[in-house]
């Protein structure tokens, strides 16, 4: 194959890979001109290059695609799904032909008319014959000259991987030898005649090392680029909606490793879409968003790369897996009975557990997971799965780099140094920082990071190192983000240096401890162990079982809202900032000090004709004539909480950190950046609340309608009423719809109970004695009035 042709193949390949992502993005947003231009440039370049060689089929195809795209550019037709599919089909065919050309085969004879026809299928919007005129509509020079130039200058040669390996390990040793030399030179003191050349050696070596590293390394992006297309095609085929999120595309991986994980990743994605993610209808039924979501993230840790593939589908079906394993004779039924979910899930990696019976165009092509695992283990990697029913499945692939140079941070704890891969480090927070807010809850240490409580491990404790002279609160925190998205803090005595580390694998006996990902030599020639951050976290249960906690763009707001607690903030008479759950607060009362009755063992107050216990009063004389109270109501009894000042009602998103020291405090949380004690309502009512007699609850009769049952009843109950049912003739108040009330000549209520009438329209007619059905305040007020009327006057007519 002559050089020119080889270049053409290489260039086309490169562009093919780059354009796959573009085309999907373009389909998602057909108005995205930049994407359209990029794809157009690709087909145009292919067409142009074909001119040099004799590839009529290739030329015809790229020409047809170019025409169709040119029409889009000119606004003559819309980019619809059919067009995108047709363009993709053309690109696929081009890619196959390129393969054939590279292999030196004759281009297969074939008929591409159906492809060309497909391009024409979606009729142009305004000009029915638009595509026929394509040639004229091609702009003269659609490709910026610079791009063509840059591509043309890239040349490539083929080298045996063995040779690259040798060069690579040679250079790694050179780096270490240089470090050793540097150390010795430092010890020998300043020697200008040597230092100069040595500096030069250092800089040359670092250049060479960069180049060498890049030789074998490839960004995992090259693999990732093809995935959106795969997901799109599969989900389309299976009638599912799936979005995909890629992270860590800049992680570099040995070229061979990339080839090795290509199939497994494709296989897992196929399975996720085929079996994991439910149909849109099922998803909606389960309260998930219509389109499923797949996240793929790569991260480097020492001499392993973890690739995490998660979906938010139904999770693995343990029963189905078990049944299959039993029926294929892998395990016996009695064995199955003794297996927990975790063990059953691991069966999918066993030889013989293939998905062969479900051969379809989708899942059939993949290799079995047992082969995947075997291949990975052969090179010293591994694969793990975790899955939560209804939430999703998470596959973690560990791919080793037997020898690599990574950016790392050297840390120290208990007089011993360790290294942590830079890729995990989110942030380093120095000891003096107040924002850290170090606390201990039970045995777990917590720090506050970006407004969230984050679990914290002390490196010294994890490794059982000598007791450090630095107190826990004054340690430096290294915030580590795992591939699964989980975050934790690692407390260390001090940070030493950032730098490139040549990581070598540790001996099996050391690797067995599971704490170390490799070892490296520092400049002073001392060996340092590289910590296996992922394993460390998983040993301390810091990794969430499945996708649930992985950061998913767009879903964060949903989840936080669910977790939000609405609280009323106030400052107590003891000056403490506290909060109570807003559901409890019935009303804010301001009352004269005279309502208080301090004569009994417990203070009480008379509010609305009822005697209510009071808590939170200051010791000693009352500070003012008027007192502020929060009137708390638990559905049955009331409690007045005396406060000095009422701040605000807020939604609180931060983690509630349970507090055990004060029985009246449920948890400590952060509001803004200040700690707030959330009062334990349960304990409060248990201690101070006075349980009313059960029969004491007044009865309320509701209109017979669905709305009344589902909307009105909870409100009425929360106002302290029992709902009177149909046959019961007892009622202390009745609620009627006004329009029904009008129809009845003589409304009958037991014991002449008062009637609250509800109207359907917000604006009341002049002088109407009705309440709008959604006027919560008025309704509650009316109910309270009816109730207090009963309590005070014993019922009224």
């Amino acid at each position, binding site marked *: 194959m002559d050089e020119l042709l080889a270049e053409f193949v290489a260039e086309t390949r490169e562009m093919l890979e780059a354009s796959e992502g573009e085309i999907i993005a373009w389909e998602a947003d057909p108005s995205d001109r930049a994407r359209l231009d990029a794809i157009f440039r690709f087909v145009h370049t292919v067409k142009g290059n074909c001119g040099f060689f004799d590839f009529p089929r290739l030329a015809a195809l790229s020409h047809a695609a170019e025409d169709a795209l040119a029409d889009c550019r000119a606004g003559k037709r819309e980019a619809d799904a059919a067009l995108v599919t047709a363009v993709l089909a053309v690109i696929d065919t081009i890619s196959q032909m390129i393969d054939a050309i590279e292999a030196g085969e004759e281009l297969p004879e074939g008929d591409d008319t159906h492809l060309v026809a497909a391009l024409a299928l979606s009729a142009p919007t305004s000009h029915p014959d638009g595509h026929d005129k394509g040639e004229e509509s091609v702009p003269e020079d659609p490709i910026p000259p610079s791009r063509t130039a840059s591509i043309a200058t890239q040349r490539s040669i083929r080298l045996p991987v063995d040779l690259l390996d040798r060069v690579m390990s040679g250079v790694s*040793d050179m780096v*270490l*030898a240089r*470090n*050793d030399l540097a150390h010795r030179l430092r010890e020998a003191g300043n020697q200008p005649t040597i230092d100069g050349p040595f500096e030069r050696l250092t800089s040359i070596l670092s250049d060479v090392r960069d180049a060498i590293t890049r030789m074998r390394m490839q960004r995992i992006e090259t693999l990732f680029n093809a995935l959106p297309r795969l997901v799109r095609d599969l989900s389309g085929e299976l009638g599912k909606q799936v979005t995909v999120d890629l992270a860590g595309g800049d992680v570099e991986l040995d070229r061979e490793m990339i080839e090795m994980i290509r199939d497994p990743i494709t296989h897992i994605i196929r399975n996720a879409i085929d079996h994991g993610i439910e149909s849109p209808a099922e998803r909606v039924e389960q309260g998930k968003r219509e389109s499923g979501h797949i996240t793929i993230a790569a991260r480097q840790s020492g001499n392993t790369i973890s690739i995490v593939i998660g979906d938010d589908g139904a999770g693995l079906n343990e029963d189905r897996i078990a049944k299959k394993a039993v029926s294929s004779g892998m395990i016996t039924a009695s064995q199955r009975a003794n297996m927990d979910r975790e063990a059953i899930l691991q069966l999918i990696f066993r030889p013989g557990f293939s998905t062969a019976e479900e051969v379809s165009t989708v899942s059939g092509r993949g290799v079995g997971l047992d082969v995947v695992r075997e291949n990975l283990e052969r090179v010293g990697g591994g694969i793990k799965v975790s899955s939560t029913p209804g939430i999703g499945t998470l596959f973690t692939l560990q791919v080793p780099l037997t020898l690599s140079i990574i950016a790392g941070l050297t840390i120290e704890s208990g007089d*011993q140094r360790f290294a942590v891969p830079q890729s995990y480090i989110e942030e380093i927070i120095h000891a003096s920082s107040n924002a850290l807010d170090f606390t201990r809850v039970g045995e777990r240490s917590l720090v506050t990071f970006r407004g969230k409580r984050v679990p914290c491990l002390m490196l010294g404790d994890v*490794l*059982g*190192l000598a007791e450090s002279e630095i107190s826990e609160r004054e340690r430096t925190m290294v915030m580590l983000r795992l591939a699964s998205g989980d975050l934790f803090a690692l407390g260390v005595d001090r940070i030493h240096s950032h730098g490139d580390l040549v990581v*070598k*694998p*540790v*001996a*099996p*006996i*050391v690797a*067995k*401890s599971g*704490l*170390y990902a490799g*070892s*490296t*030599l520092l400049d002073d*020639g*001392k*060996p*340092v*162990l590289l910590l296996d951050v992922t394993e460390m976290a998983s040993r301390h249960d810091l990794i969430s079982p499945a996708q649930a906690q992985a950061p998913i763009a767009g879903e964060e707001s949903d989840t936080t809202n669910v977790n939000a607690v609405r609280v009323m903030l106030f400052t107590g008479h003891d000056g403490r900032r506290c909060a109570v759950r807003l559901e409890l607060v019935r009303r804010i009362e301001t009352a004269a000090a005279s309502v208080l009755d301090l004569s009994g063992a417990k203070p009480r107050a008379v509010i609305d004709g009822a005697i209510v216990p009071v808590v939170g009063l200051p010791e000693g004389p009352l500070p003012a004539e008027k007192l502020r109270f929060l009137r708390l109501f638990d559905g049955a009894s009331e409690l007045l909480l005396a406060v000095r000042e009422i701040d605000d009602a807020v939604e609180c998103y931060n983690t509630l950190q349970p507090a055990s020291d004060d029985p009246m405090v449920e948890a400590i949380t952060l509001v803004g950046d200040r700690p707030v004690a959330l009062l334990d309502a349960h304990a409060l009512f248990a201690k101070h609340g006075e349980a009313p007699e059960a029969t004491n609850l007044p009865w309320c009769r509701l209109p017979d309608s669905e709305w009344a049952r589902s909307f009105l009843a909870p409100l009425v109950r929360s106002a302290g009423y029992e709902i009177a049912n149909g046959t019961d003739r007892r009622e202390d108040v009745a609620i009627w719809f006004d329009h029904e009330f009008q129809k009845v000549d003589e409304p009958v209520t037991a014991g002449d109970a008062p009637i609250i009438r509800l109207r359907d329209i917000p604006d009341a007619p002049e002088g109407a004695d009705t309440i709008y059905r959604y006027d919560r305040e008025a309704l509650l007020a009316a109910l309270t009035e009816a109730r207090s009327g009963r309590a005070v006057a014993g019922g009224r007519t």
Partner: protein
Amino acid sequence: MNELLVMATIAGRRCAFRADDVQSVIDLGSVTPVPHTPDFVAGMTALRSQTLTVIDTRRAIGLGSSEWTSDHRAVVVLIAGFSYALLVDEIEDVTTGLAQTGTIPGGFGAQWARVATGMIETRTGPALLIDLPILIAGPDRSEVAA
């Protein structure tokens, strides 16, 4: 048959390593401890650009280490692609093995029998020829538990 052997004393007994297995004998510099590894892993040390795992042979056999003095030198061996530095009582000399390894009635005792290929006669007397892969794997779990 005249095989070169590196002679050393381990826990007061004369032992031999095949010279082919031994890469070098080094002066042991500072040893970095490796937390959470079995006690016979003394730590790691650096040899030029290499990192060596330092194995205390006494503990690896299943004997205590405290009652024996250690040589300031260590035997460097390469096993399955990894280099180890073996900590022994004393490194003696290189000598020639005179015969095939053999066994003797009554055996060498359970712990020794486990790590030894057999007894070998040398110019300086009999010694136990150590099976390196078994030695660096450390005592059996059952023995550790016992």
